[in-house]
């Protein structure tokens, strides 16, 4: 029997890292930067948070301050992702390196960075299993409203998540509003569509690209943090984050660059990602991989349909992936 009430919360929990990654990547792409480094950024965000909280848990011992327990990992995560964003911008905007190459290199780098420091921490903690558990921090991150448990299915579906889940939705809604209804959003879209036009209109391309890419990376980094601290209950083990970063990039295309759509779409992806747990497939493990393919399959179908309909609003930002240099001829 398909258990919707247990399925939905799991799908949502699965969707939040995707939503962070997707929102971050969407606003980055709106500025014309195709940041394929997002999977790496999410790794770096996660491990930075883990390092922060590990050190804090070690030093504070039993007297952990509730605020610092949350603040330190978050600040470390944002800082780590910000540095990745700055690196990407420096390479592509200032040095005008190829965006695809830079992004892919950063993904490789970010995953390696995460695993290296993850491995080091595991050694430091001297644990038996190849993972670190940050249970105190995780408890703070995944705490839901106290009365949620009393509200039956309603509480389970809507109120059973940690604060980062609601933050993800708030950020996506804000991003959507900013893009559509503010001057900044209008100018950002212009930068991504036609930087030469935006430049001639007196908009600083460099500033917009740096700001949105860095903010996008920070948002994406939070996705990594959510994964470790909330979804994985504070347990870091190498490579556990898997291909979620790529799924987030696929989600950007799936939602045709709309952060508000991505809230529901990420839940759909999250659901597809864990569907195999709910469909009786016997002990056949290969079925699991087939089900995990679904999100990508759906993305390809959306890509085909949106290309076929050829509506201008549904196309990627026109200068996506291209670097801008004013005096280029």
């Amino acid at each position, binding site marked *: 029997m398909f258990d919707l009430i247990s399925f939905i919360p799991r799908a949502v929990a699965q969707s939040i890292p995707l939503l962070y990654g997707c929102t971050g990547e969407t606003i980055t792409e709106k500025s014309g930067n195709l940041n394929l480094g997002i999977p790496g950024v999410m790794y770096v965000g996660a491990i930075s948070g883990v390092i922060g909280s590990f050190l804090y848990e070690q030093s504070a011992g039993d007297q952990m301050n509730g605020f610092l327990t949350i603040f330190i990992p978050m600040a470390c995560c944002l800082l780590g992702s910000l540095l990745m964003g700055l690196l990407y911008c420096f390479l592509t905007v200032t040095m005008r390196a190829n965006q695809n190459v830079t992004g892919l290199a950063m993904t490789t780098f970010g995953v390696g960075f995460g695993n290296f420091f993850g491995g080091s921490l595991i050694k430091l903690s001297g644990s038996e299993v190849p993972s670190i558990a940050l249970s105190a921090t995780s408890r703070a991150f995944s705490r839901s409203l106290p009365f949620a448990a009393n509200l039956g299915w309603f509480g389970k579906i809507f109120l059973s998540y940690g604060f980062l889940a609601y933050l993800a939705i708030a950020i996506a809604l804000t991003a959507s509003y900013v893009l559509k209804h503010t*001057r900044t959003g*209008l100018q950002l879209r212009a930068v991504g569509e*036609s930087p030469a*036009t935006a430049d*001639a*209109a007196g908009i600083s391309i460099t500033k917009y690209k740096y700001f949105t890419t860095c903010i996008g990376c920070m948002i994406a980094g939070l996705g990594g943090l959510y994964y470790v601290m909330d979804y994985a209950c504070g347990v870091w083990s190498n490579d556990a984050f898997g291909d979620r970063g790529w799924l987030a990039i696929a989600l950007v295309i799936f939602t045709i660059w709309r952060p508000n759509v991505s809230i529901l779409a990420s839940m759909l992806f999250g659901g597809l990602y864990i569907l195999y747990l709910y469909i009786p497939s016997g002990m056949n493990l290969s079925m699991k991989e087939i089900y995990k393919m679904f999100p990508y399959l759906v993305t390809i179908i959306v890509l085909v349909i949106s290309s076929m309909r050829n509506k201008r609003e549904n196309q990627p930002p026109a200068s996506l992936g291209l670097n801008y240099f004013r005096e280029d001829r």
Partner: protein
Amino acid sequence: MDSQIPAVRMQNITKTFGKVTANKDVNLDIRRGEILALLGENGSGKTTLMNMLSGIYYPDSGSIYIDGKEADIGSPREAFSYGIGMIHQHFKLVDVLTAAENIILGLKEEGRLNLDAAEKRIREICSTYGFEVDPKQKIYDMSVSQKQTVEIVKVLYRGADILILDEPTAVLTPQETERLFDVLRNMRADGKAVVIITHKLREVEEISDRVAVLRKGEYVGELKTSETNAQEMTDMMVGHAVSLNIERPEPKDPKPRIEVKNLSVRSSDGIRKLTDVSFDIRTGEILGIAGISGSGQKELLESVTGLQPVESGSITYIEDDGSRRELIGMDPRHIQAMGVSLAFVPEDRLGMGLVGSMNITDNMMLRSYRGGHTVFTNRKPPKALADRVVRELEVVTPGLTTPVQRLSGGNVQKVLVGREIASAPTVLLTAYAVRGLDINSSYTIYNLLNEQKKEGVAVVYVGEDLDVLIELCDRILVLSGGRVSGIVDGRTADKNEIGLMMTKAGGEAHE
């Protein structure tokens, strides 16, 4: 009106790009209540000079004075603050935004984004100068002339009183050009300073008060329009005397070479591009094709060369001995091997036929690499051809190994047209061969076409400038919305008549 202090004074302006000097010691005055025409060949540095005024480029040396005060224009935003607005040759508009959104783009206004207020102001500006713009319309739904109007409204919205227009008429029909000129006259009467960059001398004579001439990046001098004529201006531009008459040798024994019958074409989205088009292309003759851009010219030429799938109709190639071959359904490569050659110059000049990042020799090789018997390419013939094209067409380039995208637009075109002509075709199809070219280069191209004609090649010339079509072509086919609205004799045709036929909806053929 203070005519002593010019609105803009540029002094000893120099700008270089790498080794190329685009402007050298240029001095220029722009005055209010006056339309100044900036004249010069391709690559003479007109656009570069004006880009320095609008903040796109920054001069290497020299100074700019606005209303007598020295100004430092480091960015487009600063240019706006001095009241300078430029309408670029390639429109700087964001396709997926509406007219109003484009117009307010980059403005620093207080408070929330208020599109309604902006739309109201846009309507006011439009009614003042006589524009027609729908602020809510998306740019990608607009015609070229509507886009241009949006550009002009954009600079006026920013309160510009020094307007620079870079080749504004290149894409307009004669009627649209007239309307634009009326607007410009309104602005002049309003006390604005207007600069128009062009190389169409008739327009210079019609609209401007004063002409400034640049040659190879240097300032040659200025003239009062009322005291000069086309011949004098051309000589100044080119630096030596040029004959301004386009030759039109009598066609020798024209015979039908290609017969097009009831051709209908739909684009891949199912939109009808050509309806029931019938005509013939004759040897030793230049057939002109006139029409507003996008009336089916491209589809027509591509159907003949086998690049475009045809819905119905027939295209027949007639050999010298009278035998006939159907071209529809044939491989484009075979059609090319029969000597049907296409030189299409798209709006961005590079899109079709040349690879921007490859050098001239390699681009020549694109046509010939299939020849030869080994897997290795033979670079000698294309290199010789490149050398010849560069020499004969006076292509300005640092060398044969320079990527073509580094060349100025006109020079890129010379490479393209030169290559097509060199393939010794029996049918030469050219589209917009002189698009954006200066007078001297245009005449080189006209002469090349005439030479081909004299050798018995059937030449098709798709053009934008009606004056040229009338002077150069033996017959002119007028397209309107994918239909033939008439075929007229070039010797007796009238510009206004063709202009009207271009905009006609239906179409009854008369010859």
